[in-house]
């Protein structure tokens, strides 16, 4: 019982073993309680040393799970991170970005988590730690369903690793979110795109879509179809690509049909923005 905010990961494992509820920014944790009582045994992970901050490490970048969206938005990061930073800028509001963390976004595993698509396009891996040790998983294997993750009992998400795949010149990235109002809005659909242009043509591209399936999806067929395309061919290739893997639901925010329709437009726009950014480099 009680509130634990350890600065040693061993203490965190002990609290976990005793059934503490993990809280990072709290921006999903508290709303999930509704009008019911709040748990009385908490493990606050925001002071654990390896859990915060953004750093270079061998062959890539490492973002601590408890890094706030504001820290990500304000960090000086390479162009490939533009989509992730744009997504961060659209998470809720300044208040939510100041508290909410990237790790909480992933662990909460909402189909509408804005962080997912950009991280998928960045080939992110998650680093999970427990008393038994550390393991690494590709992000797509970490979030397994709506509100479901591969997190084992006793395990914490420590960091997100992003390889240097996209360090080459000519890279641009973008994020496009569709919501029914300006601020504080949950995505009806959102897409992230990242691409490298070579002599004006796509040399490599990744696109991912959120809020149109239980877990955000990369669109492999579209990525392949974009190979060699010039930006003015994007719309046509997007129009023809099968949106395999997307199975949107109808909810208060929009119909399934609408989501599929809007997603193609969002994809075209995000790809155009990414291409413009790539050309500027």
């Amino acid at each position: 019982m009680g509130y634990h905010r350890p600065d040693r990961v061993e203490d965190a494992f002990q609290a976990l073993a005793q059934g503490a509820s993990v809280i990072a920014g709290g921006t999903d944790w508290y709303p999930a309680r509704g009008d019911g009582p709040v748990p009385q045994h908490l493990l606050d992970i925001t002071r654990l040393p390896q859990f915060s901050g953004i750093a270079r490490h061998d062959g890539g970048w490492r973002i601590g799970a408890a890094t706030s969206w504001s820290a990500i938005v304000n960090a000086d990061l390479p162009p490939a991170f533009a989509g992730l930073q744009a997504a961060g800028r659209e998470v809720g509001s300044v208040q939510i970005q100041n508290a909410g963390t990237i790790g909480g976004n992933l662990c909460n595993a909402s189909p509408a988590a804005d962080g997912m698509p950009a991280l998928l396009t960045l080939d992110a891996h998650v680093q999970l730690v427990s008393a038994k040790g550390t393991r690494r998983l590709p992000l797509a294997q970490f979030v397994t369903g709506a509100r479901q993750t591969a997190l084992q009992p006793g395990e914490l998400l420590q960091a997100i690793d992003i390889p240097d795949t996209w360090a080459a010149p000519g890279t641009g990235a973008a994020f496009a979110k569709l919501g029914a109002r300006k601020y504080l809005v949950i995505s009806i659909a959102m897409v992230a795109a990242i691409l490298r242009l070579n002599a004006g043509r796509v040399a490599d591209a990744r696109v991912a879509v959120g809020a149109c399936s239980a877990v955000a999806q990369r669109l492999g067929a579209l990525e392949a179809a974009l190979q060699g395309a010039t930006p003015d061919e994007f719309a046509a290739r997007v129009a023809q690509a099968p949106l395999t893997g997307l199975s949107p639901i109808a909810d208060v925010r929009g119909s399934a049909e609408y989501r599929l329709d809007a997603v193609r437009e969002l994809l075209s726009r995000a790809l155009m923005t990414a291409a413009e950014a790539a050309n500027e480099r």
Partner: protein
Amino acid sequence: MKDNATPPFGADPCATEFRLNGASVAVSAPPGERLSQSLRERLGTRDVKIGCNAGDCGACTVLVDGAPVCACLMPTARVAGASVETQSGLVAHDPLAQRLADSFHAHQAAQCGICTPGMMVAAMALLRAVPSPTAAQVEDALGGVLCRCTGYRKIIDAVVDAGVGGMPPQPPSTGDVGQAIPRLDGRPKLDGRERFGDDIAPADTLVLRVIRSPHHHARFRLGDLQAWQAANPWVALVLTAADIPGRNLFGVIPGFIDQPVFANDTVRFKGEAVAAVVGPADAMAQFDAGQFPITWDPLPAVLDVATATAPDAPRLHPGHEGNILCQGFVKHGDADGAMAAADVQVEGQFETSYVEHGYIEPEAGMADLVDGRLHIYGCTQAPVMDQEALAPILALPLDRIRVLPSATGGGFGSKIDISFQPFVALAALRLGRAVRITYSRQETMASTTKRHPAQISLKVGAQADGTLAAIAFEGQFNTGAYASWGPTVANRVPIHASGPYALRNYIARAQGVYTNGTPAGAFRGFGVPQSAVAQEVLFDELADKLGQDALEFRIKNALTNGTPTICGQVFQQGVGIKACLQALRPAWARLNAEAQAFNAQAGVLRRGVGVAGGWYGCGNTSLPNPSTIKAGVRADGTVVLHQGAADIGQGSNTVIPQIFARALGVDVAQIAVIDGDTDRTPDAGKTSASRQTFVTGNAARLAGEALRRLLLAQVNAADDSRIVLGTAQGTGLVVEDATGPHRLRLADLPVDAEGYVLRVQETYDPPTLPLDENGQGAPYAQYGYAAHLAMVEVDTKLGTTRVLQIVAAHDVGCAINPLLVEGQVQGGVAQGLGMALMEEYLPGRTENLHDYLMPTFGDVPPIETLIIEEPDAHGPYGAKGLGEHALIPTAPAILNAIGRATGARLRKLPVTPARLRAALKEVGHA
């Protein structure tokens, strides 16, 4: 039933030390307690507001080490060693915050003031980082705070002007009628002193929580309550229907009092109250309502008008065949004949949704026993109606109940009905001590009244020259499980569904229909915004069919002085709709030209300009509707105004004194005002139907005039004498006439029980006439008029709509305080915009502020207010009501703008991106 043997509070409290507004504090709280809760209840920092407990409203924004966060999403223990700043501390210690408060005051950026702490705290973080912010930077920085009153524009102006180089406007000083003075009650909203419904009770007050139905329609059986209470010794009291000493019913309209305080054995909507539990605050915070002993037996539910009126539908209330609540009807001339003979006709079926009032302050208050009398504190729009509703429930005489309204953080109609009051009243009477309650966001959304969803079928005919020939209107209004103001909606709509136009042939029928939905009640416009959507949208289609300009078509048909309304009422003066429409001509030409130029470039974005008119009768429909104002003079010369009109942010605490001061002939600042207390202020009626400025304003004018006569008579001074009050209140009273000054010898006069040597009390009741069986008569003494222009930009690929500009022309007769007029207009426009584009309450599904979307910063465009003053024969100094008018034309103007931008004809509100995209595809957009 879960295991309830363990006490609900298990963990040891954590001690947390931090700096709060510059001072070191230590607080001991349960481990997961929200910082907002600790700040308010354990540290007395009640300027931190709680609107949702979920991060959705931003009212709880505080600075933690300089960064704005939602205190409702932060564990108190997290801030150990940190510095926390709130509105009250910032304004007390930081000159920049004082400048910000001054700017808010001058701009009237706070209306009800419940969002103001969050707004100012978020603004401080911005101003400290960016000394001269732009409007766009203000929107980004404050985007996490919702405001339901202002429409945001005044807040943007206030923050920009608080920056370096900004210049808050200098308000004029005497406060005479016509002057844009700041709110007289404005300062406490800006420095954290204001006390709303949840800010009254001491921290150790017992807390009441209502147990509510999780089903739309169900029978239920209560378990063994005695055993349950024995197993939970912290429970101070359980209340159910069996505990009600009087009549277990409430409502607002005689003959339609049909809602139980606690359901007996059947619930008719999800969120209906069945019981209440009272206990100490810390125990109640850990109480899981799911463990209350009750079993449910769900019944088939009817949630919309079609299923509720189907032959096999369950009948929800005895005596209401077909679930029909009641019906309103107006017939003028021969609509059928004229329609058949009309050169052109248009028709359409329209549908609107439930709309949530969305005030940021959930219902909250406290009841206590004081000298054997029941005192009710809390937010309300109608203190005397509260008193009258409680008396039969509690079986108490009226004079045993005193209602002391707190500041009210928005109401917009829903806080006219009682909500929390009977629960805490019953508990306080039973326990003999104070009991408080605060609705959760989910609870206020699920249980209090909404705007009626409407289904409307409308036909309009005109002659080839553009003269309106006939209108036929049928409307069904879903009133939910209980009547509330449903009868008023059914009556008002037929009287207004023609819009403010001259028309000889008219027929309109409106029905209220019971369903298992959340009760629908009063909400800015009582059904008229819904009917205006149908009528104004079809007017545009008619103008198109006739090949006429949409604005000129309306001007041609506008009602004028001397022309009968569709109720056969003739106004010889004050019909201002034509002036409103004409005032829009320059903006109409300019914005249409802009839109055309924009659309000349091909692209997915299309712009369009739409127009709509509206009218609204002020006060009750053909019923007595008096307001009374009292004033007194103390022996020291202080003039005291007893002002009982509830100020829910709309400004009657400022307007009524301004009118009174004008009538008396003094500066408004010299008057002492006592507001809201059923013991001290006579009945000024409810704050609804745009009646306070008109009706209570007239009572204030009469009282001011009477007091003036009384004062002058003391020294036999002539009518045109000047009344001079000492510069400070209570420093004597002098009457000056041609012969010089005469000091009144007030000290020689006998002093009455209230400390007055002179007193006046005046009542005003607007002259109306009953309606006959065809709805002919004089339902209102005055109407107010409005016309709006909207320019929109539609993203045709995504179906999203951005409103770029609103121009709102309002005939207010006489703008008592032009800044308050602008505030009402901008707030109303924002609500109309929400109704048009995003607001859709679905019982059981959108009971929170992230699934139910209201406009945020950045959704509300610049709003230009054009004030028209066509004096009314009855209004004080010609003034007319305004509250409801502000949102009536907005939604149809936006729909018409979307139609002109894209050709899409929308029939269902709100026009969400999904609906608009579907409509766009139908008219051929790729």
